[in-house]
Protein backbone atom coordinates (compact mmCIF):
# COMPACT_ATOMS: atom_id res chain seq x y z
CA UNK A 1 0.00 0.00 0.00
CA UNK A 2 2.90 2.32 0.75
CA UNK A 3 4.43 1.62 -2.65
CA UNK A 4 1.19 2.42 -4.43
CA UNK A 5 0.96 5.68 -2.45
CA UNK A 6 4.47 6.65 -3.61
CA UNK A 7 3.63 5.82 -7.24
CA UNK A 8 0.32 7.67 -7.27
CA UNK A 9 1.73 10.74 -5.55
CA UNK A 10 4.72 10.98 -7.89
CA UNK A 11 2.52 10.80 -10.98
CA UNK A 12 0.15 13.36 -9.45
CA UNK A 13 2.98 15.76 -8.57
CA UNK A 14 4.50 15.38 -12.02
CA UNK A 15 1.29 16.36 -13.78
CA UNK A 16 0.05 18.80 -11.14
CA UNK A 17 0.89 22.48 -10.83
CA UNK A 18 4.62 23.07 -11.23
CA UNK A 19 5.32 19.46 -12.27
CA UNK A 20 7.48 18.67 -15.27
CA UNK A 21 5.10 16.27 -17.06
CA UNK A 22 3.53 18.53 -19.72
CA UNK A 23 6.85 20.28 -20.38
CA UNK A 24 8.42 16.96 -21.42
CA UNK A 25 5.78 16.38 -24.10
CA UNK A 26 6.11 19.92 -25.46
CA UNK A 27 9.90 19.53 -25.52
CA UNK A 28 9.57 16.21 -27.36
CA UNK A 29 7.34 17.70 -30.04
CA UNK A 30 9.61 20.76 -30.33
CA UNK A 31 12.70 18.64 -30.94
CA UNK A 32 10.86 16.63 -33.59
CA UNK A 33 9.46 19.78 -35.19
CA UNK A 34 12.96 21.17 -35.66
CA UNK A 35 14.12 18.06 -37.55
CA UNK A 36 12.43 18.83 -40.91
CA UNK A 37 14.11 22.25 -40.90
CA UNK A 38 17.50 20.70 -40.20
CA UNK A 39 17.18 17.85 -42.71
CA UNK A 40 15.61 19.89 -45.48
CA UNK A 41 12.63 19.29 -47.74
CA UNK A 42 13.65 15.74 -48.78
CA UNK A 43 10.57 13.72 -47.71
CA UNK A 44 12.13 10.33 -48.42
CA UNK A 45 15.21 11.13 -46.35
CA UNK A 46 13.01 12.47 -43.55
CA UNK A 47 10.91 9.30 -43.51
CA UNK A 48 14.06 7.17 -43.39
CA UNK A 49 15.53 9.18 -40.51
CA UNK A 50 12.18 9.42 -38.73
CA UNK A 51 12.48 6.53 -36.26
CA UNK A 52 16.02 7.53 -35.26
CA UNK A 53 14.95 11.15 -34.74
CA UNK A 54 12.00 10.02 -32.63
CA UNK A 55 14.29 7.88 -30.50
CA UNK A 56 16.69 10.77 -29.89
CA UNK A 57 13.80 13.05 -28.99
CA UNK A 58 12.44 10.46 -26.53
CA UNK A 59 15.88 9.95 -25.01
CA UNK A 60 16.35 13.68 -24.42
CA UNK A 61 12.81 14.23 -23.15
CA UNK A 62 13.16 11.46 -20.58
CA UNK A 63 16.28 13.16 -19.21
CA UNK A 64 14.29 16.28 -18.31
CA UNK A 65 12.48 14.95 -15.26
CA UNK A 66 15.39 12.94 -13.88
CA UNK A 67 17.09 15.76 -11.99
CA UNK A 68 14.07 16.17 -9.73
CA UNK A 69 13.28 12.45 -9.39
CA UNK A 70 14.99 12.05 -6.01
CA UNK A 71 16.30 15.58 -5.47
CA UNK A 72 12.88 17.08 -4.78
CA UNK A 73 12.35 14.48 -2.04
CA UNK A 74 15.87 14.99 -0.71
CA UNK A 75 15.40 18.76 -0.43
CA UNK A 76 12.11 18.72 1.44
CA UNK A 77 12.98 15.81 3.74
CA UNK A 78 10.66 13.25 2.14
CA UNK A 79 13.61 11.05 1.23
CA UNK A 80 14.44 10.61 4.93
CA UNK A 81 10.88 9.42 5.50
CA UNK A 82 11.13 7.05 2.53
CA UNK A 83 14.29 5.59 4.06
CA UNK A 84 12.45 5.10 7.36
CA UNK A 85 9.38 3.61 5.69
CA UNK A 86 8.25 0.01 5.92
CA UNK A 87 9.09 -0.54 2.25
CA UNK A 88 12.56 -1.72 1.13
CA UNK A 89 14.49 1.13 -0.47
CA UNK A 90 15.12 -0.85 -3.67
CA UNK A 91 11.37 -1.24 -4.17
CA UNK A 92 10.89 2.47 -3.44
CA UNK A 93 13.46 3.25 -6.17
CA UNK A 94 11.71 0.83 -8.55
CA UNK A 95 8.34 2.44 -7.90
CA UNK A 96 9.75 5.94 -8.35
CA UNK A 97 11.24 4.85 -11.69
CA UNK A 98 7.88 3.36 -12.66
CA UNK A 99 6.16 6.63 -11.76
CA UNK A 100 8.74 8.54 -13.82
CA UNK A 101 8.02 6.24 -16.77
CA UNK A 102 4.26 6.62 -16.39
CA UNK A 103 4.40 10.41 -16.03
CA UNK A 104 7.12 11.08 -18.63
CA UNK A 105 7.37 8.24 -21.15
CA UNK A 106 3.72 7.24 -21.61
CA UNK A 107 2.70 10.78 -22.71
CA UNK A 108 5.56 10.73 -25.25
CA UNK A 109 4.34 7.43 -26.65
CA UNK A 110 0.83 8.88 -26.90
CA UNK A 111 2.24 11.95 -28.67
CA UNK A 112 4.36 9.86 -31.06
CA UNK A 113 1.73 9.74 -33.86
CA UNK A 114 1.63 13.56 -33.94
CA UNK A 115 5.42 13.61 -34.13
CA UNK A 116 5.37 10.95 -36.86
CA UNK A 117 3.23 13.19 -39.07
CA UNK A 118 5.94 15.86 -38.90
CA UNK A 119 8.50 13.29 -40.06
CA UNK A 120 6.44 11.82 -42.92
CA UNK A 121 6.54 8.35 -41.34
CA UNK A 122 4.32 5.50 -42.55
CA UNK A 123 1.75 3.93 -40.25
CA UNK A 124 3.47 0.55 -40.09
CA UNK A 125 6.84 2.09 -39.25
CA UNK A 126 5.19 4.24 -36.61
CA UNK A 127 3.53 1.17 -35.11
CA UNK A 128 6.82 -0.64 -34.76
CA UNK A 129 8.54 2.50 -33.42
CA UNK A 130 5.88 2.74 -30.72
CA UNK A 131 6.48 -0.95 -29.92
CA UNK A 132 10.22 -0.28 -29.47
CA UNK A 133 9.32 2.64 -27.19
CA UNK A 134 7.07 0.41 -25.08
CA UNK A 135 9.84 -2.17 -24.73
CA UNK A 136 12.80 0.18 -24.40
CA UNK A 137 11.66 3.22 -22.39
CA UNK A 138 11.06 1.32 -19.11
CA UNK A 139 14.74 0.38 -19.24
CA UNK A 140 15.72 4.00 -19.89
CA UNK A 141 13.63 5.16 -16.93
CA UNK A 142 15.33 2.59 -14.69
CA UNK A 143 18.84 3.52 -15.84
CA UNK A 144 17.88 7.16 -15.38
CA UNK A 145 16.81 6.47 -11.81
CA UNK A 146 20.32 5.20 -11.04
CA UNK A 147 21.85 8.39 -12.45
CA UNK A 148 19.37 10.52 -10.52
CA UNK A 149 20.13 8.64 -7.29
CA UNK A 150 23.90 9.01 -7.72
CA UNK A 151 23.63 12.76 -8.33
CA UNK A 152 20.90 13.45 -5.78
CA UNK A 153 22.83 15.75 -3.47
CA UNK A 154 24.50 17.83 -6.21
CA UNK A 155 23.24 21.21 -7.36
CA UNK A 156 22.57 21.57 -11.10
CA UNK A 157 22.85 17.84 -11.49
CA UNK A 158 20.91 17.69 -14.76
CA UNK A 159 23.91 17.74 -17.09
CA UNK A 160 25.85 15.29 -14.93
CA UNK A 161 22.91 12.89 -14.95
CA UNK A 162 22.78 13.15 -18.75
CA UNK A 163 26.48 12.31 -18.96
CA UNK A 164 26.00 9.34 -16.64
CA UNK A 165 22.84 8.03 -18.25
CA UNK A 166 23.28 8.58 -22.00
CA UNK A 167 26.16 6.09 -22.53
CA UNK A 168 24.19 3.41 -20.67
CA UNK A 169 21.15 4.17 -22.83
CA UNK A 170 22.94 3.57 -26.13
CA UNK A 171 22.31 -0.23 -26.35
CA UNK A 172 18.57 0.30 -25.94
CA UNK A 173 18.59 2.86 -28.76
CA UNK A 174 20.73 0.63 -30.99
CA UNK A 175 18.37 -2.34 -30.77
CA UNK A 176 15.29 -0.14 -31.05
CA UNK A 177 16.48 1.44 -34.29
CA UNK A 178 17.86 -1.91 -35.51
CA UNK A 179 14.40 -3.47 -35.18
CA UNK A 180 12.89 -0.69 -37.30
CA UNK A 181 15.71 -0.93 -39.88
CA UNK A 182 15.15 -4.69 -40.17
CA UNK A 183 11.43 -4.18 -40.59
CA UNK A 184 11.78 -1.57 -43.35
CA UNK A 185 14.29 -3.87 -45.09
CA UNK A 186 11.65 -6.62 -45.09
CA UNK A 187 13.30 -8.75 -42.39
CA UNK A 188 11.97 -9.91 -39.05
CA UNK A 189 12.39 -7.34 -36.23
CA UNK A 190 11.91 -9.97 -33.52
CA UNK A 191 15.58 -10.55 -32.65
CA UNK A 192 16.47 -6.89 -31.98
CA UNK A 193 13.18 -6.42 -30.12
CA UNK A 194 13.98 -9.42 -27.92
CA UNK A 195 17.45 -8.04 -27.18
CA UNK A 196 15.94 -4.68 -26.32
CA UNK A 197 13.51 -6.42 -24.00
CA UNK A 198 16.41 -8.28 -22.41
CA UNK A 199 18.16 -4.96 -21.70
CA UNK A 200 15.03 -3.64 -20.01
CA UNK A 201 14.77 -6.81 -17.90
CA UNK A 202 18.40 -6.53 -16.81
CA UNK A 203 17.79 -2.90 -15.84
CA UNK A 204 14.66 -4.00 -13.96
CA UNK A 205 16.79 -6.21 -11.72
CA UNK A 206 20.00 -4.20 -11.41
CA UNK A 207 18.82 -0.57 -11.41
CA UNK A 208 16.65 -0.59 -8.25
CA UNK A 209 19.45 -2.20 -6.26
CA UNK A 210 22.03 0.26 -7.60
CA UNK A 211 19.77 3.27 -6.99
CA UNK A 212 18.99 2.11 -3.44
CA UNK A 213 22.70 1.66 -2.72
CA UNK A 214 23.34 5.24 -3.84
CA UNK A 215 20.43 6.62 -1.81
CA UNK A 216 21.63 4.82 1.34
CA UNK A 217 24.93 6.71 1.17
CA UNK A 218 23.33 10.13 1.62
CA UNK A 219 24.18 11.62 5.00
Amino acid sequence: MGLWAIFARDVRLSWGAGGGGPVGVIFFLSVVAVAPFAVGPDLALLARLGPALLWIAVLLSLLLGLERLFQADQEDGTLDQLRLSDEPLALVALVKAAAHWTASAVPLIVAAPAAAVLLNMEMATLGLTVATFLIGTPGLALIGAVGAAVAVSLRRAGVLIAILVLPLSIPTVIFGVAAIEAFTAGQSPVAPLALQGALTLVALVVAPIAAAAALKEID
Partner: protein
Amino acid sequence: MSDLAVSGLCVDRGGRRVLSDVSLTVAAGEALVVSGPNGAGKSTLLRAIVGLCAVADGAVDYPGEIALCAHLVAHKNAVKATETALSNIAFHARILGADAPEMAAEEALAAVGLLALADTPAGYLSQGQTRRLALARLFAAPRPLWLLDEPVAGLDAASRERFAGAMATHLDGGGLVVASTHEPLGLVAPKTLALG
Protein backbone atom coordinates in the same frame (compact mmCIF):
# COMPACT_ATOMS: atom_id res chain seq x y z
CA MET B 1 11.99 -3.78 27.52
CA SER B 2 12.40 -1.54 24.51
CA ASP B 3 15.35 0.51 25.67
CA LEU B 4 17.49 2.62 23.42
CA ALA B 5 21.19 2.41 24.26
CA VAL B 6 23.88 4.35 22.40
CA SER B 7 27.47 3.68 23.33
CA GLY B 8 30.67 5.37 22.22
CA LEU B 9 29.08 6.94 19.14
CA CYS B 10 31.47 8.85 16.86
CA VAL B 11 30.34 10.56 13.66
CA ASP B 12 32.47 12.42 11.12
CA ARG B 13 31.00 14.96 8.74
CA GLY B 14 33.03 16.77 6.11
CA GLY B 15 36.28 15.47 7.59
CA ARG B 16 35.45 16.89 11.02
CA ARG B 17 34.50 14.83 14.07
CA VAL B 18 31.05 16.13 14.97
CA LEU B 19 30.17 13.58 17.63
CA SER B 20 32.87 12.07 19.76
CA ASP B 21 32.20 9.18 22.13
CA VAL B 22 28.54 9.93 22.87
CA SER B 23 26.74 7.48 25.10
CA LEU B 24 23.16 7.59 26.29
CA THR B 25 20.33 5.33 27.38
CA VAL B 26 16.61 5.94 27.20
CA ALA B 27 14.19 3.44 28.69
CA ALA B 28 10.58 2.94 27.67
CA GLY B 29 8.51 5.81 29.03
CA GLU B 30 11.51 8.08 29.33
CA ALA B 31 12.38 11.31 27.56
CA LEU B 32 15.85 12.63 26.83
CA VAL B 33 16.48 16.26 26.00
CA VAL B 34 19.66 16.93 24.04
CA SER B 35 21.05 20.43 24.36
CA GLY B 36 24.15 22.20 23.12
CA PRO B 37 25.31 25.16 21.05
CA ASN B 38 24.78 25.39 17.28
CA GLY B 39 26.92 22.85 15.51
CA ALA B 40 27.32 20.63 18.57
CA GLY B 41 25.89 17.69 16.61
CA LYS B 42 22.35 17.48 17.98
CA SER B 43 20.73 16.89 14.60
CA THR B 44 23.54 14.55 13.57
CA LEU B 45 23.01 12.51 16.73
CA LEU B 46 19.33 11.99 15.91
CA ARG B 47 20.13 11.00 12.32
CA ALA B 48 22.90 8.65 13.44
CA ILE B 49 20.61 6.94 15.96
CA VAL B 50 18.14 6.06 13.23
CA GLY B 51 20.84 5.09 10.73
CA LEU B 52 20.48 7.96 8.27
CA CYS B 53 24.13 8.96 8.47
CA ALA B 54 27.30 6.93 8.55
CA VAL B 55 28.74 6.14 11.96
CA ALA B 56 32.53 6.11 12.37
CA ASP B 57 32.51 4.17 15.62
CA GLY B 58 30.19 3.04 18.39
CA ALA B 59 26.90 1.19 18.49
CA VAL B 60 23.19 1.88 18.66
CA ASP B 61 21.21 -0.85 20.41
CA TYR B 62 17.49 -1.14 20.12
CA PRO B 63 15.32 -4.25 20.09
CA GLY B 64 14.07 -4.58 16.54
CA GLU B 65 14.86 -2.74 13.31
CA ILE B 66 15.29 0.82 14.54
CA ALA B 67 14.44 2.44 11.18
CA LEU B 68 11.01 0.77 11.36
CA CYS B 69 10.41 1.69 15.00
CA ALA B 70 11.37 5.36 14.90
CA HIS B 71 9.82 8.63 13.82
CA LEU B 72 12.22 11.39 12.82
CA VAL B 73 10.91 14.94 12.73
CA ALA B 74 13.92 16.82 11.39
CA HIS B 75 14.33 20.44 10.31
CA LYS B 76 12.92 19.59 6.90
CA ASN B 77 9.20 19.07 7.17
CA ALA B 78 8.73 16.52 4.35
CA VAL B 79 5.67 18.44 3.19
CA LYS B 80 4.72 18.86 -0.48
CA ALA B 81 3.34 22.33 -1.12
CA THR B 82 0.87 21.32 -3.84
CA GLU B 83 -0.67 18.48 -1.84
CA THR B 84 -3.39 19.13 0.73
CA ALA B 85 -2.59 18.85 4.43
CA LEU B 86 -4.65 15.67 4.62
CA SER B 87 -3.05 13.95 1.62
CA ASN B 88 0.42 14.88 2.90
CA ILE B 89 -0.26 13.10 6.17
CA ALA B 90 -2.16 10.23 4.56
CA PHE B 91 0.90 9.63 2.37
CA HIS B 92 3.20 9.42 5.38
CA ALA B 93 0.70 7.23 7.21
CA ARG B 94 0.81 4.83 4.25
CA ILE B 95 4.58 4.64 3.83
CA LEU B 96 5.15 4.44 7.59
CA GLY B 97 2.80 1.51 7.83
CA ALA B 98 -0.44 2.72 9.44
CA ASP B 99 -3.32 0.24 9.36
CA ALA B 100 -6.11 2.61 8.30
CA PRO B 101 -4.20 5.54 6.79
CA GLU B 102 -7.11 7.85 5.89
CA MET B 103 -8.61 7.65 9.36
CA ALA B 104 -5.21 7.81 11.02
CA ALA B 105 -4.39 10.92 8.99
CA GLU B 106 -7.56 12.70 10.08
CA GLU B 107 -6.92 11.81 13.71
CA ALA B 108 -3.33 13.02 13.36
CA LEU B 109 -4.48 16.37 11.94
CA ALA B 110 -6.92 16.69 14.83
CA ALA B 111 -4.10 15.96 17.28
CA VAL B 112 -2.15 18.99 16.03
CA GLY B 113 -5.24 21.17 15.57
CA LEU B 114 -5.15 21.31 11.76
CA LEU B 115 -8.32 19.40 10.96
CA ALA B 116 -10.06 22.58 9.79
CA LEU B 117 -7.30 23.01 7.18
CA ALA B 118 -7.34 19.39 6.00
CA ASP B 119 -8.24 20.28 2.41
CA THR B 120 -5.94 23.29 2.13
CA PRO B 121 -2.83 22.84 -0.03
CA ALA B 122 0.14 22.75 2.33
CA GLY B 123 1.79 25.61 0.44
CA TYR B 124 -0.79 27.98 1.90
CA LEU B 125 -0.04 27.03 5.50
CA SER B 126 2.06 29.30 7.68
CA GLN B 127 5.49 28.20 8.91
CA GLY B 128 4.13 27.18 12.30
CA GLN B 129 1.21 25.31 10.73
CA THR B 130 3.61 23.48 8.39
CA ARG B 131 5.66 22.47 11.41
CA ARG B 132 2.52 21.14 13.07
CA LEU B 133 1.80 19.21 9.88
CA ALA B 134 5.24 17.58 10.19
CA LEU B 135 4.51 16.75 13.84
CA ALA B 136 1.20 15.18 12.78
CA ARG B 137 3.25 12.31 11.28
CA LEU B 138 3.95 11.18 14.84
CA PHE B 139 0.26 10.49 15.37
CA ALA B 140 -0.47 9.13 11.89
CA ALA B 141 1.56 5.94 12.32
CA PRO B 142 2.25 4.47 15.75
CA ARG B 143 5.98 4.09 16.33
CA PRO B 144 7.52 3.89 19.81
CA LEU B 145 10.67 5.97 19.35
CA TRP B 146 10.24 9.68 18.61
CA LEU B 147 13.35 11.53 17.47
CA LEU B 148 12.53 15.22 17.44
CA ASP B 149 14.80 17.95 16.14
CA GLU B 150 13.67 21.35 17.46
CA PRO B 151 10.08 20.08 17.40
CA VAL B 152 8.35 23.24 18.61
CA ALA B 153 10.33 25.82 16.60
CA GLY B 154 7.83 28.37 15.31
CA LEU B 155 4.88 27.00 17.26
CA ASP B 156 2.50 29.24 19.25
CA ALA B 157 1.94 28.78 22.99
CA ALA B 158 -1.28 26.79 22.63
CA SER B 159 0.30 24.40 20.12
CA ARG B 160 3.33 23.91 22.36
CA GLU B 161 1.08 23.05 25.26
CA ARG B 162 -0.93 20.63 23.15
CA PHE B 163 2.26 18.98 21.90
CA ALA B 164 3.66 18.71 25.45
CA GLY B 165 0.47 16.88 26.39
CA ALA B 166 0.82 14.57 23.38
CA MET B 167 4.42 13.73 24.35
CA ALA B 168 3.31 12.97 27.90
CA THR B 169 0.62 10.63 26.58
CA HIS B 170 3.17 8.93 24.34
CA LEU B 171 5.56 8.45 27.27
CA ASP B 172 2.78 7.11 29.50
CA GLY B 173 2.09 4.51 26.83
CA GLY B 174 5.68 3.26 27.04
CA GLY B 175 7.06 5.39 24.22
CA LEU B 176 10.51 6.97 24.03
CA VAL B 177 11.33 10.56 23.16
CA VAL B 178 14.73 11.94 22.22
CA ALA B 179 14.45 15.65 21.48
CA SER B 180 17.06 18.24 20.65
CA THR B 181 16.01 21.71 21.65
CA HIS B 182 17.08 25.15 22.81
CA GLU B 183 13.85 25.82 24.68
CA PRO B 184 11.81 23.97 27.31
CA LEU B 185 9.45 21.39 25.81
CA GLY B 186 7.12 21.07 28.80
CA LEU B 187 8.32 17.56 29.64
CA VAL B 188 8.19 16.47 33.28
CA ALA B 189 11.73 15.84 34.54
CA PRO B 190 13.36 14.55 31.37
CA LYS B 191 16.87 13.13 31.27
CA THR B 192 19.33 15.58 29.78
CA LEU B 193 22.41 15.30 27.62
CA ALA B 194 24.64 18.28 26.90
CA LEU B 195 26.72 18.13 23.74
CA GLY B 196 29.67 20.25 22.71
